[in-house]
């Protein structure tokens, strides 16, 4: 009954070390996936918001206001329940009876992606606004096509200006993955909950989960800061 902390957290047959580590891997996968989906949506959102067509701008504004104004957990529920309703309808129409649901990881990546996309929209938009218009004019005066302008002038500078904000968004995406425990994804928090339930040591296991979130955040934050420094080199005089 009485097991030491080292045994509980160890990698032995009774230890929770391995399950917790692999759950941390799931957390990292969900966060990375969500962030990448969010980048895609963020770029589209920024393009919409910077568009000359009022209707497109309106869509962009609606996207960012809506998904930044309501709790993330509701969006997770929307994708969780909504996804299975839509999928079941499609499958039933296709002649396959029964109930269908999407894998929790996919739902999580999509839900987190949609939310972080709204925040990333703002990051890319403000970064784009900081571009020096003169450089764009100079570029087109040199005969660069729109694609070349995008590749040589717009993309590298926008990325560099957006990076600090993107770093913050990454940190909140990482923390948001904890919400996916409620839809049954065995990420860090859920695994810690399982361990806490079976050993009756909630303080220890939720504490360990907290520390692991801190460590992942610190390590990834370190690399983001290094990239930031690296990209800033070209601008330092």
């Amino acid at each position, binding site marked *: 009954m009485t097991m030491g902390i080292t045994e509980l957290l160890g990698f032995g047959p009774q230890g929770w070390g391995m399950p917790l580590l692999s759950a941390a891997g799931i957390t990292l996968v969900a966060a990375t996936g969500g962030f990448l989906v969010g980048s895609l949506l963020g770029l589209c959102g920024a393009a919409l918001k910077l568009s000359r067509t009022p209707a497109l701008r309106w869509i962009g504004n609606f996207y960012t*206001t*809506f998904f930044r*104004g*309501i*709790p*993330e*957990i*509701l969006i997770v*529920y*929307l994708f969780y*329940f*909504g996804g299975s*309703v839509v999928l079941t309808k499609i499958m039933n129409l296709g002649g396959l009876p029964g109930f269908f649901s999407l894998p929790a990881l996919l739902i999580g990546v999509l839900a987190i992606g949609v939310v972080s996309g709204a925040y990333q929209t703002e990051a890319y938009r403000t970064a784009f606004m900081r571009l020096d218009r003169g450089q764009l004019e100079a570029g087109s005066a040199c005969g660069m096509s729109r694609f070349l302008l995008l590749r040589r002038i717009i993309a590298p500078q926008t990325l560099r200006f957006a990076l600090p904000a993107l770093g913050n968004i990454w*940190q909140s995406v990482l*923390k*948001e*993955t*904890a*919400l996916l*425990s*409620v839809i049954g994804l065995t990420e860090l*928090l859920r695994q*810690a*909950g399982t361990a*806490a339930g079976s050993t009756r*040591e*909630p*303080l220890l296991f*939720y*504490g360990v*989960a*907290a520390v692991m*979130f*801190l460590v992942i*955040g*610190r390590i990834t934050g370190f690399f983001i800061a290094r990239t930031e420094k690296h990209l800033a080199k070209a601008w330092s005089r």
Partner: protein
Amino acid sequence: MIDWSFLIEVLQKLLAGLPLTLQLTGFSLLIGFILAVIVAAAAASRIRVFRWVANCHVELFRGTPLLVQIFLIYYGLGQIPELRQSFLWPFLREPYWCAVLALALNTSAYTAEIIRGAVQAVPAGEIEAARACGMSGFLLRRRIIWPIALRQGLPVYGSEIILMIKGTSLASIITLNEVTGIAYKLISSTYRIFEVFIVTGALYLLVTALTGLAISLIERRLNVHHAYRRT
């Protein structure tokens, strides 16, 4: 096509949870702000231990998910026998106070950083001018530092308030029936996901938009002396 009577029924049920959502937000912001002032003061203190504790507090509560903090408090604290015997236990046994405590601790870390940033952003020239006029200590803070810091920090604090409103939704996971808790129950009992989601989303948007509006009105009042800058 749209089943208005169902939407209105959903709205009525959700509105019953709105007071709890607002109460959780209000309580945790109030307690969190008081804690944040203490933490910010400790972070700016000359005593190294105070600075260290304050930095740890900020790092811990900003670096971990709010849900982990809620679980640590709700499930974890009961494990400490000394706490179970103390006068605090009648409070900490209740999910309501656990949620308030977790939310307050969480916002205190963010708010402490907002306060620190706002005070640091007070222009040195203003402080020098005040010192040259003979102000120091409390008078300098009351007349110069705090009013300027308030103006600097208010917009950021406004988004922290909105984050807190959204954060209270996690209290539903530890059985509290605030707006999200009711929405979840409605979704799982009626399975009309999209309708319930739209109404719940609209309700949260309304609350967050009104909060944003209130903050910008206060901001405008505080910056009345800059009014000429607007066209």
